[in-house]
Every structure is written in structure tokens, then in C-alpha cells.
């Protein structure tokens, strides 16, 4: 424990401590709490959607408001909940896992976080603008975006700010990983979580500016007389889709890859075996990242592409299943003959593995052009991306929180309650989303407030599941608060299978300043 010193940095107390902090642990916590608040807000919007869809007909909200709910729900969950959650993990864990004292640019780190609350307020506040928020879907397709009220401008600015925050955060993460590793921590010795974040950060730096460009073009089309997407002036709305999805497909891996990283830490720990095929995991992740820039038009099979292009995008998309398959294989091989135990983090990792793989398979189904032309913009797609984003990314985030909570706060969560949270989540998740496959196959379109009678039964089931899932997450909040207030004191190393630096070289809870002198890991 020689790495730990007692420093008396003079810092303001109370709220000002958090406004001015440059400490990666404070900033990590703020990211995670911000993300949780946004998660609950996006969740309430999801419940408005599901309440309206409980029965056919219009009962709860007007169609315009319904569209604003689907739009904001998507944007808030993607940019406000999932992405900041994993940046929160990155902040807490990366310095501790590579033996660095803090992030490379602590002050910029503070800025990256504090850009988020104004962006979140702008995004949610667009509901109060005259005419409400944009009701255009999270993909912000032109030319609809050109015809919205000022709520749309607020959303565009919000995306600019969120993008800036992500890019700054990513620059910080890449620099930290490349330059601040402890002596002996070679690239190929880095924990896989660190590797996945290095790759994700590059994806973010390459993809977010393209989204920023797309929404800037929308903005200038709206107000400054440009005609990028406005057919009236020779613009082309289909071009918007190309630019958006050039960002959009890498974005889904920006969400998924850090989740892969968390899972790659949790499964070996609770199998008490090193990760199977470490190097192949690194290469698989990198090839997923590269391929993700080459398949975007699989979201656009119905725009009227030449058949050669459809064939290319179909095969290129299916190719991604190969490195993804390598990863799933390696996780399973890690557990093979391991001495496994099923504490809450491992349960969520198992849930991830099982359900994310289903999401991957439905992705393959959607990659098939003739099939997708039938299923596009329907509930099958909605089911697909909730399997990869909720049961994938969100479950991985839950696994990560339960796994690292003892290290962060020095207290244990209630194992029994954690397991209940897992079972409630996985059951209600499937009640909500599995049935949406049936709805999609039967032809129910997405983003509509009303539907034909034959879809009534499964929609009712799905809505019941959604409310169950929502309340299970309030229960999660209770588990967290209980652990923070009165959790049992955590042992130094609650998970005997853990091998990364934060568990082997630092006390529990992790001190405010860690690795001020780097650990020596040579030999």
C-alpha cells in the first residue's frame, strides 16, 4: 500500500467541492449520478409511451406529445444515460487500473462533466418551448427537423454540447491510457476494460464530430438559408440519413464496447480464471470498431439504394457478427471449468451474455436486406435494439456498479436485494421486449401512438412489463442508498477472483488520491 499518501489538498467544502473538483473519483461519481437521474427521466418518458400503448386508441396523450416523448426518450437514454454512465466508469476505474494518479487533464475533465447538466436541461427543457420539443425521433431525420419549432434548436444545441463533452472526455481517456500507465503496464497487459475504453474513445473522437456536422447542417438549413437537406433548394434528405448513420452505427458500438469491457472484468473474477483469449479479445474489439464505420447503410435498406450497395451492406454487416462471436465464445470459454459463483455482478453478466446474444442474432436477421425491408421501422427493430442496449449496455452497467461499489464506497450492497433486483429486471425486461418481436413480425410500426386492434394483447403485456421494469429500478436506487448509508463494511477484497490493480494494490475503499507514485509492475 505504499502508493497511498495522505494529502491535505485544500478544497472547498460542500457543493463547491463538486463544482471545482478535478479529482477523477469525484468526477466519476458525478457522471454516474447524472446518468442515473437522466435514466429515471428517460424512464418516465418510456412509461408515458407505454401507458399510451397499453390499449389501442388515444387515451393518455396527444400524438404530437407522444412523438416528443419517443424522441426525448431515445436521446436522453443514449446521450444522457448510457454514455455518461460508462464515462463515469472510465473516470473511476481507468486511473486505478493502470496505476495512474488521475486523468491526464484534470481540469478539462471537470469541464467535460459540467457541460452535461446544461445540455440535459436544454434537452429536457425543449419540452417547454413553444410547440414543444422536436417530435422527429432520436435519429433527427430531415426534412422533418427543418419544419419544427424552436424546441428543435434547443435539442440541436444540446447535442452540440453533449458531443463536445464526449470528445473532451475521450481525448482525456486516450491521453491517460497512452501516457500515464505505470512502469511495466504494457499495452497488452492492460485490463480489458481499459482496452475497450481506448477503442471507444477513438470511436467517439471520429464519430461525434460527424454528428455535430449533421446537426449543424440542420441548423443552418433551418435558419441560414442553406439547402443541405431541403429538397426545395436542391438538397437531399436521404443524404442526411447517410451522414447520420455514418455516426449512428459507430455510436451503437460506442455504447456496446465499454459494456464488453465491464463484462470482460466481471466474468473472469467470478469464474476465478483469467480471461480466455485476451489477445483475440483485443483484436476482435478493434476489428468491430473498424468495421462499424463501413456498414452504416444497413439502417437505410428502404431508401432506394442500388442492389449492389444493398448486397455490400448486407454482407459487411454480417461480417461484424464474426468478431462479436469471438467475444461471446471467449466469455463462455472463460467460464468453462471455472469455479463460478453467482453474486449479483455475475448474475447481471450472465443476463448480459444471454440477452445480448439474442440481440446480436436479431441484428443478423435485420442485416438481411429482404427481411429488413419487411421489418424496418417496426417493433422487431425496437426489440432488437433494446436487447443490445438495455439487456446489453445497461445490464453491464448494473454489473459494473455492483462489482465496483465496495471499492468506491467501502461498503457492501445487500446481496439478497441485489439478486432480487436482477431477477425483477431480467423478468420484466423480457416481458416488455420479447413480445415486441411478435408485434414487429406481425407488422406493427414503431413511433405511433395508436395501432390496429390485432396488436392489442401483446402491447398490453409489454406495457405491464415496462411498468414492472421501471419500478425495479426505483428498487435499485433504494439498494444503492441503503448500501451508502448503512451497508456492511466491505472487506479489503470482497471478490477473491479479482486480479486488477484497484483490488490488488489499493485499500478498500479506494483513497481519495491513489497511485501518486506509480506502482512498479515490472517482472
Amino acid at each position, binding site marked *: 500500500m505504499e502508493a497511498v499518501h495522505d494529502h491535505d489538498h485544500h478544497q472547498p467544502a460542500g457543493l463547491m467541492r463538486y463544482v471545482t473538483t478535478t479529482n477523477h473519483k469525484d468526477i466519476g461519481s458525478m457522471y454516474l449520478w447524472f446518468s442515473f437521474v437522466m435514466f429515471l427521466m428517460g424512464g418516465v418518458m418510456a412509461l408515458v409511451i407505454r401507458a399510451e400503448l397499453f390499449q389501442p386508441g388515444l387515451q393518455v396523450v396527444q400524438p404530437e406529445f407522444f412523438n416528443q416523448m419517443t424522441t426525448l426518450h431515445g436521446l436522453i437514454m443514449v446521450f444522457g444515460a448510457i454514455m455518461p454512465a460508462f464515462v463515469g466508469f472510465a473516470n473511476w476505474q481507468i486511473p486505478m487500473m493502470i496505476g495512474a*494518479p*488521475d486523468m*491526464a*487533464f484534470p481540469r478539462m475533465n471537470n469541464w467535460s462533466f459540467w457541460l452535461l447538466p446544461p445540455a440535459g436541461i436544454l434537452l429536457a427543457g425543449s419540452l417547454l418551448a413553444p410547440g414543444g420539443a422536436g417530435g422527429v425521433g432520436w435519429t433527427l431525420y430531415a426534412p422533418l427537423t427543418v419544419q419544427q419549432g424552436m424546441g428543435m434548436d434547443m435539442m440541436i444545441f444540446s447535442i452540440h454540447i453533449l458531443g463536445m463533452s464526449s*470528445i473532451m472526455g*475521450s*481525448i482525456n481517456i*486516450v*491521453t491517460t491510457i*497512452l*501516457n*500515464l500507465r505505470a512502469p511495466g503496464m504494457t499495452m497488452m497487459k492492460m485490463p480489458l476494460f481499459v482496452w475497450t475504453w481506448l477503442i471507444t474513445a477513438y470511436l467517439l*473522437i*471520429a*464519430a*461525434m*464530430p*460527424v*454528428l*455535430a*456536422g*449533421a446537426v449543424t*447542417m440542420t441548423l443552418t438549413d433551418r435558419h441560414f*438559408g442553406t*439547402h*443541405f437537406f*431541403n*429538397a*426545395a*433548394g*436542391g438538397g*437531399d434528405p436521404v*443524404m442526411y440519413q*447517410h*451522414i447520420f448513420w*455514418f*455516426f449512428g452505427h459507430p455510436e451503437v458500438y460506442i455504447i456496446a464496447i465499454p459494456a464488453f469491457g465491464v463484462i470482460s472484468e466481471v466474468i473472469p473474477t467470478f469464474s476465478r480464471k483469467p480471461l480466455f483469449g485476451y489477445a483475440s479479445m483485443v483484436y476482435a474489439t478493434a476489428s468491430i470498431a473498424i468495421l462499424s464505420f463501413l456498414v452504416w447503410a444497413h439502417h437505410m435498406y428502404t431508401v*432506394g*439504394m*442500388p442492389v449492389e450497395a444493398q448486397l455490400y451492406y448486407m454482407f459487411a454487416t454480417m461480417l461484424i457478427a464474426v468478431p462479436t462471436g469471438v467475444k461471446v465464445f471467449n466469455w463462455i470459454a472463460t467460464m468453462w471449468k471455472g469455479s463460478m459463483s453467482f453474486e449479483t455482478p455475475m448474475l447481471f453478466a450472465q443476463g448480459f451474455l444471454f440477452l445480448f446474444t439474442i440481440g446480436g442474432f436479431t441484428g443478423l436477421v435485420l442485416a438481411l436486406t429482404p427481411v429488413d425491408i419487411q421489418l424496418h421501422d417496426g417493433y422487431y427493430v425496437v426489440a432488437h435494439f433494446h436487447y443490445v442496449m438495455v439487456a446489453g449496455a445497461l445490464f453491464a452497467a448494473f454489473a459494473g456498479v455492483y462489482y465496483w461499489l465496495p471499492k468506491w464506497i467501502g461498503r457492501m450492497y445487500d446481496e439478497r436485494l441485489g439478486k432480487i433486483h436482477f431477477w425483477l429486471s431480467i423478468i420484466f425486461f423480457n416481458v416488455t421486449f420479447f413480445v415486441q418481436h411478435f408485434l414487429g413480425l406481425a407488422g406493427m410500426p414503431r413511433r405511433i401512438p395508436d395501432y390496429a386492434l390485432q396488436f392489442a394483447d401483446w402491447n398490453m403485456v409489454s406495457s405491464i412489463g415496462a411498468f414492472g421494469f421501471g419500478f425495479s429500478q426505483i428498487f435499485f436506487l433504494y439498494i444503492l442508498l441503503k448500501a451508502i448509508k448503512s451497508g456492511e463494511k466491505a472487506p479489503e477484497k470482497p471478490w477473491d477472483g479479482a486480479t486488477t490493480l484497484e483490488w490488488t494494490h489499493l485499500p478498500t475503499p479506494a483513497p481519495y488520491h491513489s497511485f*501518486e507514485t506509480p506502482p512498479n509492475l515490472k517482472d
Partner: protein
Amino acid sequence: MASDTSKLENRQTLKKLVFIAILMFGFGYALVPLYKKICEVTGVYSLTKPDEVVNTQVDESRSIVLEFDANSRNETGWEIIPLENRKTVHPGELVQVTFKLTNPTATTFEAQAIPSYGPKEAGQYVKKLECFCFTQQKINANETRDFPVVLVIDPELPKDVTTVTLSYTMFEIEVKSTTENRQASLRERQS
């Protein structure tokens, strides 16, 4: 904490990464001309160009119902209608149809017509030789004008297609003050 050399290293990494971010922002914009170019080269983007007709063999054995339709957008106040709603033609035959545009307002407009087809896939078999959609049109105040369209249905049109719809949407080319102009002229029209 971080030594001076590592600070320098960090700053260099920062510069490189910021450069990539700026480059990618530019790349987003570069996609615009790139996209147009790719469409041009592959022939996808030919909405506003005359088609070349290679095979003008008239296929007397088939008849196709051609339907015409036209709309205007942006609450411009103009009306555009085809003089005939439908026509039965043979593939390969030269077809002429006239669209009539009336601008009852006291304002001059620049407009662009964009064609679309039903079924969508039939579009590539509708070969337009002459069309008011090839260029932007200036429409004077209170003007009424006839626009001829000359086209040929490609005999390669798949056998199962028996009806093809050609629809034009007349867009106003937006100038800065269009909205005010339009509102003023609409007010005029109402009074």
C-alpha cells in the same frame, strides 16, 4: 504529480486528438460533395437530368396506364395540375403531357419541381426527354403557364407493372424573406 516531460507528452497527444476531431467535423461536410459525386457517377441522382433513350422499339403488345399528379408545397398559394389525369400508352412510345401552373399571388417565385414515381422502382423506366423539372423555374406574379413533359416508358419495364404514377411536387426555392412575402401575398389574396 505528472512531471514536465509527461506534461509535454500529454499536450502533444491532445493536439493530435483535437486535430482528428476537427478533421472528422470537416469530413462530415466533405460527405456532402462526395455523396453528390457518387450519385452522379453511379447514376443514382438523375432526377433533374434528361434521360437518354436507347431502345425506342414500341412494344405494341403491352399497354401501361400512366397516371399524372402534381402538388405544390410550402403553402405557396399556387396551383399545379396535369391537364390529363391518365393516359394509356405502349412502352417505347413517345408520350407528351402538359402540366398547368397558376400563380394567383402578386409575388414572383423561383420554383423547382421534383418528380416521384409509384411504384418507386418504376422510376428508372420512366425516361424523361423534356421536363420543367430539369431547371428552376421563375414564375411571375399572376402568371399561368403550361409546362410540357415528354417521356418514354422503357420497354424493359417489368411485366407485372401495369400502372405507373408520375407525380411532381413544386417546391419554392427559399429566399431569405420568403415567409414574409408569402404571408403578405396570401393576405392580399384574401382581401
